[in-house]
């Protein structure tokens, strides 16, 4: 516990308190959340300090461990921009740093914040309604048109449509000035992120300090999410609406928050490709056909929502979505175009707009802003340039890299002159803002608390009862003592926010009261993309297993050098050839077979290697992470670690051990999916993928190792690869003979490794899937599965040869294509997905 320094040696509560606070002094000129200027601790923090100083350093560390483990296990993490690696989309994923001390805010103070945020949400919503509607404010001169048209989020095609820009959620970034007043630093109206992180922070600290929530009467968050959900449901036109969370996909920095919220709120997590617009309605592509989407909670920028009418380059959106909105057939929240009021240019108009629109003064001021698109304001900024921060007036067109404010005081003379010239040339692109000095809160560092600057994101949701504000928020803390602007991208921690009440707080959970729950065994419908990914997950896992078995078979035989049985060398050669044919190892010329086997294990250059297949499996799994258990997800990490190439060369024996232990991890995954996954459509697709791949692989083995005249040694290899050695020995006293072996691995319906067994299971799984029409006709996948099953049942081992085994293999590939066509690729075959089952 070296990192806890003096805290370790402190024995009593008082000593530990002193150790924690040793040297804690508010930064000059900044408000401190914990400590008043005279050095006394603000009363709302006392219970927290008392709890911490009541715990030994070891116990405190143990509690932090509980919180951190929760964060790691739920996998809610934050992707750092610019870290995306096309080969490994998970490379940039970082554990999300949690500050173990919360931000404590009193209920009385919170009332002001909540009222101010609700007021601002209402104001911005009305402003949006006017921008995309009558345009009164511009016409009357209350707002220059150019303060709107500069925003890339001003979406002209939405002009005059129902609900354009309307807010369902809103977030405000707040900071506290040196005088103790809260200021609005920025508005988030597009698709605010962070509420899910806030919830996670809460659950993590709840693990560490469960009693503190009760003793401090901390307001609960669940009721807010319940209201938000109610608000979305209320916007829909059907009673039990289908609500989709539209995500940009797993490369987005807050994808895991989105997956988490979808699971928490019971929404369907979809990507643009999962949705399709037909006849003015938006549908989700599912394995049971198109199902109507009533409400789309979007987490993609508005401009990307429809490549037909908005950004033609977008691959994230739904072609035709704007037309569906125009016909008022779908609710998109927040309404497309809502981002326009995020512009800094608008900030300078807010006080006047509040009076104009609401007839009220702003409860929370925003930081003083001058938009240089106006001659008078431009003059002020140029006159006082050195004391200002200069920022883009609008989000940069097509990227936010240049979006950070510049502190003029930090610039050298030449840079200042360039800035001045730019403002004189095109003032309308710039705003001048007062330099913000943020308040500080405690973070634990080397066993004592230190003040660090922070900002607070507060969330509001539109509900039938008006704007509701989440009692808490997402607090971001800078790692630098003098940071004046905080972003998540540079060394930042986050903190839970505790709003304390004078009275005990009633716990609320999102779960409805028990007597209101209707019993259900199968939940919802499976989107085609999820089915597709589960199917491929199954295939990749099975492919990994096949490669591992091959590698193990090769290495096992190499190690066992004494074996001089006839065909020994021939078998090894055939196994190695199979690795090459499979794309798992580089071609053999001049290469030692052992090194081929090692690269089939660790090499990432060969697409068929075990490491490459695991990487693909994990990539596929990450897209459907909301459908996998934490334990299953962890196994991918284990597998990837096992198959990471070691720094120094490994011996054949060591490589054998790696293949063996990776096979054990895979078996654990199979066990988990067999024992713990609900037998819904999702599980079936995972199973279909595995069975298909196993069937095809087994056919390939059989073609390679079993033909008349093959040495018994090769047949042994075949039994090893299909894990059928023991079964064979128990049935036959002799060594491996061609026909019994072929029967066992190809045709025996009782051997869970045989092709026949896979085929029977495939038929059962496919029969259990939904059909598109009720005309009693077989769909193509079922037709093929039945044909395969009949072929297997009626075949005889004595007649099996290369050609007939190849026919089985081809039928299996055909079945794979039919499954893809019917359940995944409905896009490409609209005739195949008749619209008879609209829900």
């Amino acid at each position, binding site marked *: 516990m070296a990192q806890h320094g003096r805290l370790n040696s402190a024995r009593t509560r008082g000593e530990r308190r002193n150790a924690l606070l040793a040297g804690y002094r508010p930064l000059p000129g900044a408000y401190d959340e914990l400590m008043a200027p005279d050095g006394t601790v603000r009363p709302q923090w006392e219970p927290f300090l008392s709890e911490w100083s009541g715990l030994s350093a070891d116990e405190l560390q143990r509690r932090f461990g509980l919180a951190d483990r929760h964060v790691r296990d739920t996998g809610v993490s934050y992707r750092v921009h610019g870290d995306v690696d096309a080969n490994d989309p998970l490379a940039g994923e970082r554990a999300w740093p949690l500050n173990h001390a919360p931000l404590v805010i009193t209920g009385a103070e919170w009332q002001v914040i909540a009222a101010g945020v609700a007021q601002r949400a209402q104001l911005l919503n009305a402003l949006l309604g006017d921008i995309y509607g009558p345009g009164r404010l511009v016409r009357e001169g209350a707002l220059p048109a150019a303060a709107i*048209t*500069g925003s890339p989020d001003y979406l*002209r095609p939405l002009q005059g449509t129902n609900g354009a820009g309307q807010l369902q959620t809103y977030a405000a970034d707040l900071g506290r000035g040196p005088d103790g007043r809260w200021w609005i630093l920025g508005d988030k109206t597009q698709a605010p992120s962070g509420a899910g992180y806030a919830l996670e922070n809460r659950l993590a600290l709840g693990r560490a300090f469960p009693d503190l929530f009760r003793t401090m009467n901390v307001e609960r968050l669940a009721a807010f999410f319940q209201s938000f959900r109610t608000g979305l449901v209320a916007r829909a036109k059907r009673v039990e609406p289908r609500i989709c969370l539209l995500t940009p996909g797993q490369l987005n920095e807050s994808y895991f928050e989105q997956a988490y919220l979808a699971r928490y709120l019971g929404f369907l997590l979809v990507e643009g490709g999962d949705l399709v617009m037909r006849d003015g309605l938006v549908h989700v592509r599912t394995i049971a056909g198109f199902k109507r989407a009533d409400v789309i909670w979007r987490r993609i920028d508005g401009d990307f929502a429809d490549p037909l*009418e908005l950004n033609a380059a977008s691959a994230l959106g739904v072609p035709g979505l704007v037309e569906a909105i125009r016909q008022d057939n779908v609710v998109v929240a927040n309404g497309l175009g809502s981002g326009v009021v995020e512009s800094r240019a608008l900030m300078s108009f807010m006080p006047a707009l509040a009076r104009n629109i609401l007839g009220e003064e702003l409860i929370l001021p925003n930081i003083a802003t001058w938009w240089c698109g106006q001659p008078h304001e431009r003059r002020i900024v140029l006159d006082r340039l050195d004391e200002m921060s200069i920022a883009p007036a609008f989000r940069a*067109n097509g990227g936010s890299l240049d979006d950070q404010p510049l502190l003029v005081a930090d610039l050298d003379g030449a840079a200042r002159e360039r800035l001045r010239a730019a403002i004189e040339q*095109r003032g309308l692109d710039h705003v001048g803002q007062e330099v913000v000095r943020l308040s500080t809160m405690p973070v634990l560092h080397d066993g004592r608390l230190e003040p660090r600057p922070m900002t607070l994101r507060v969330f509001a949701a539109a509900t039938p009862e008006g704007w509701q504000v989440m009692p808490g928020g997402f607090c971001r803390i800078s790692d630098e003592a003098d940071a004046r602007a905080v972003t998540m991208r540079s060394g930042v921690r986050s903190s839970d926010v505790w709003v304390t009440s004078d009275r005990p707080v009633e716990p609320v959970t999102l779960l409805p009261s028990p007597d209101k729950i209707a019993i259900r065994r199968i939940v919802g419908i499976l989107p085609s993309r999820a089915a597709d990914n589960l199917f491929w997950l199954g295939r990749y896992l099975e492919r990994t297993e096949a490669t591992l078995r091959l590698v193990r078979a090769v290495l096992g035989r190499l190690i066992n050098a004494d074996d001089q049985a006839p065909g020994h060398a021939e078998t090894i050669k055939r196994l190695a050839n199979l690795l090459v044919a499979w794309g798992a190892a580089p071609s053999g010329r001049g290469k030692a077979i052992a090194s081929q086997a090692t690269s089939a294990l660790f090499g990432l250059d060969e697409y068929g290697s075990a490491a490459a297949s695991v990487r693909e499996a994990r990539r596929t799994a990450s897209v459907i992470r909301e459908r996998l258990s934490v334990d299953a997800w962890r196994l991918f990490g284990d597998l990837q670690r096992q198959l990471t190439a070691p720094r120094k060369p490994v011996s054949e024996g060591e490589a054998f051990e790696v293949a063996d232990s990776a096979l054990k991890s895979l078996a654990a995954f199979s066990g988990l999916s067999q024992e713990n996954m609900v037998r819904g459509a999702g599980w079936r697709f995972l199973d279909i993928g595995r069975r298909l791949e196993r069937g095809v692989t087994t056919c390939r083995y059989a073609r390679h190792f079993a033909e008349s005249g093959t040495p018994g040694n090769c047949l042994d290899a075949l039994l090893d690869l299909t894990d059928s050695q023991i079964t064979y020995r128990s049935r036959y006293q002799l060594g491996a003979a061609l026909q019994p072996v072929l029967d066992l691995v190809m045709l025996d319906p009782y051997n869970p490794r045989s092709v026949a067994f896979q085929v029977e299971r495939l038929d059962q799984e496919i029969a259990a899937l939904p059909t598109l029409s009720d005309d009693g006709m077989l769909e193509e996948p079922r037709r093929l599965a039945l044909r395969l099953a009949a072929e297997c049942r009626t075949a005889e081992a004595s007649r099996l040869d290369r050609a007939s085994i190849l026919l089985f293999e081809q039928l299996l590939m055909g079945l794979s294509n039919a499954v893809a066509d019917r359940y995944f690729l409905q896009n490409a075959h*609209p005739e195949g997905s008749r619209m008879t089952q609209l829900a």
Partner: protein
Amino acid sequence: MIYEIRHLTSYAYARPVPFARCILRVLPREGDGQHVVASELSVTPRSVERHDGICFFGNHTTTLTIAKPHRELRIETRSRVEVNRAAAPFPALTRNWEEVTALAQGAQSLAPDSPAQYIYPSRLVPTVDEITAYAQESFQARRPVFEAARELMGRVRRDFTYDPEATEVSTPIREAFAQRHGVCQDFAHIMIAGLRGLGLPAAYVSGYLRTIPPAGQPRLEGADATHAWVMIWCGPETGWIGLDPTNDLIVGDDHIITATGRDYADVSPLDGVLVGPGSQKLDVKVDVIPVS
């Protein structure tokens, strides 16, 4: 002047395309000195869904869904358009350009033709300092806006080489500017970037230019082409005036407008999604025939 315009676009695909959803902006628009007497659009193969509308900028849009496998997509328009533009103002009598900039920035309208819609960078026309500096040479202090803009147009015509091989639709204007090569679309984008860099409202126009065959030679069928040019806002009295930097021409009755917007992305004749791999070959035939 009345024109008959026939415009045929065909895409030939290497492999059948089972599904396509697209938006077309191919029918000529009303206004800016022209009146559409009649126009029609036909598309083969037949669409399962078709929706006709007018976009924010006032252009005709047609959204189509084609659900039938096809190897060729043919888009054909026939239009009759009457063009009768007012004469351009005397350049020296227009407002000085600083005034125009200030008026545009203070505009009290979000209408599609409001100058405030055309003073910011747009998808294909970012602010490029070099281009702004290039434009600045024609915009001396308090110079009448139209005089200066006309001079800029002439310089673009002189300094740039028309070269269909040099650029593609996707070539960034920074590159076309550096090479001093390009086609009408590049010249229009570059001139717009220069004007907007100075804070002046500039719009992109797609359409056709009547071609006059050399004396004694017949007009070649299908040999005309689509064209692109610029409009600049010169203040509330004068409004929008067309300038054609490819030909150093003030736009009069020889130009027929199809669509206007902030840049090519707003008026692109076809955007869409089609399903299916494989390459495509594009063929365009245009006839612009003056009838009276």
